[in-house]
């Protein structure tokens, strides 16, 4: 068994052992061994130093190339961000324009089915409520859903114009809604700001097309006013009656006042009339004092 292994590892080890024995027999002088040892040690140290130096050089070169490439990508990035910022600003501006379209009174947004129209009502420069009509564009054209109040004659207007003349439909609806908003605005302001002039509750209805109230402007007796808006597209009454409260006959002065008020209500918006009453009162107070 052992003989077979002679060509293998064991044989090699035996050879090395024999070699070492022969070297011992030659008996080299101890100081020579030491010298050789120290020479080898120096060489090892020299080689290590060279290795470290080369490693440092490689590292240094790697770092410089990295920095160079980083600088170039940074340059690209700033260009990119600047472009992105410009696009973002443009997008915001377009969005703002689209949002601002509501100030024209009639705007819309495309939907998957058709278009959603937004009617923004206004009166005398005051932006009031907005109403929506979601239209489905198919044959026949139909209204998917809407936020038009139930007392606005939407069905009537749709029956007349929706299928034949969409522009006319939208225009008529705009007209009706703007007029309603305007009348409502006047009635709300009378009930709010100028409530002090009223001597009883303001009688109104959903469409604000019939307003009835009693009011007093100076120390004398009050008047009853009845404003009728027979046309749903107007914000000024089609018919005004001002009657005196109380049973005694009117003096000439009071009759003049009554007629003047009737004319005022016919030609000026309601809240403007009462604003003028308020101004007159202020004037008379300041004159008196």
């Amino acid at each position, binding site marked *: 068994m052992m003989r077979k292994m002679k060509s293998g590892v064991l044989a090699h080890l035996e050879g090395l052992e024999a070699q070492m024995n022969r070297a011992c027999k030659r008996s080299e002088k101890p100081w020579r061994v030491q010298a050789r040892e120290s020479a080898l040690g120096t060489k090892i140290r020299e080689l290590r130093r060279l290795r470290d130096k080369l490693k440092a050089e490689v590292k240094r070169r790697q770092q410089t190339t990295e920095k160079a490439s980083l600088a170039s990508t940074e340059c690209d990035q700033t260009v990119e961000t600047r472009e992105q910022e410009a696009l973002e600003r443009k997008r915001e501006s377009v969005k703002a324009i689209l949002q601002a379209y509501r100030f024209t009174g009639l705007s819309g947004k495309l939907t998957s089915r058709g278009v959603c129209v937004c009617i923004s009502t206004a009166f005398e420069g005051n932006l009031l409520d907005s109403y929506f009509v979601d239209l489905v564009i198919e044959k026949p054209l139909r209204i998917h*859903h809407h936020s038009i109040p139930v*007392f606005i004659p939407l069905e009537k207007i749709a029956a007349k114009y929706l299928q034949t003349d969409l522009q006319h439909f939208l225009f008529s609806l705009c007209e009706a809604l703007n007029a309603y908003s305007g009348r409502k605005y006047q009635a709300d302001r009378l009930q709010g700001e100028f409530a002090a002039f009223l001597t009883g509750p303001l009688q109104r209805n959903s469409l604000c097309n019939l307003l009835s109230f009693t009011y007093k402007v100076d120390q004398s007796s009050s008047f009853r006013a009845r404003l009728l808006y027979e046309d749903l597209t107007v914000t000024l009454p089609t018919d005004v009656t001002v009657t005196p409260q109380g049973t005694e006959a009117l003096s000439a002065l009071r009759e003049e006042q009554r007629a003047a008020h009737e004319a005022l209500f016919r030609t000026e918006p309601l809240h403007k009339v009462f604003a003028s009453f308020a101004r007159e009162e202020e004037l008379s107070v300041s004159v008196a004092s």
Partner: protein
Amino acid sequence: MGRTRQMDVNLAEFVRRTILKIPMAKMMTILKTWGFLSENQLQTLNFKQRKDSFAQDLILQCEENRATISDVALLDIVYTQVHQHQKIWNVFHMNRKPDEEVDIFDMEEFKRTFKKILHRALKNVTVSFRDAEDDSVWIRIAWGTQHKKPNQYKPTYVVYRSQTPYAFTSSSPLKGVVPLLGQALMTASRHHQIVQMDLRSRHLDSLKAIVFKQFNQEFENHNSITPLQEGTLGLDINMDSRIIHENTVEKERVWRVTQETFGVSPPPQLEFAQYKLETKFKGDLCGGILADREEPLRCLIKFSSPNLLEALKCLAPAGIADAPLSPLLTCIPNKAMNYFKIRDK
């Protein structure tokens, strides 16, 4: 100081029973809204005593102010306005001739005409009005006969918003009054036809939202914030990130279909939907008692819930039903119906 006139016994009883209905917690608010007693009188009332004695004190104050039936009827209206859900409300739809006439609604004229028609038909009837917000009026009718005084404890309430074709009435145990009520409403509001709708609920506000189409009011426009794109129904927001949904595509489809059908905002509140079926039985099993019958199977299916539409909205996302739901269920708010009769075509 003269002795205050003793109130009519029946009237005093009416006051007493009305006061006893009102919960003490709401008493001050309701009395203030009523506006019949002065601030001083309200201050002198002792709210800490037993209700019986409180009612007696109040009767004395009403005597001082010479209260009439109309005044107490107004108190009853205020009570009902605060406790709307105690009544079941029906909806009536009115039509007028399709002419060009613009609706000039005069509230005073409406009230006059309404009262006149009822008084003409019935000698004994108490009609009271109270104006409400939204240009509406609340009407209270206590019914009597030719020979009997009006029964103040079984009144009918009507809520009507001017220049609209809808009126809301409380369910009355007195069924015979409905035609007369309809007649009065129709004539006073200048319509020529009135029909009861198949829509009923305790929630008056929800009924208004349905017929005035004030639900589901989201519209696409450039000014609104776009609705949430993430498919949630509030359930998944706080879920652990280590949990993944296997079926996200289907979940998102279901969520999208549900949103398209029901909208984003909370739906009107209805408590039930009733389906009266008169259809032939269609079953999978061959044979059996119900199969091969010529006559239709009559059955009544009733869905109940504190908030039926909200519950239906949650069915598909919860995995209990397929989306889209049957149109018989989803059409409820759009058709303004929650009572259906279904027959074979």
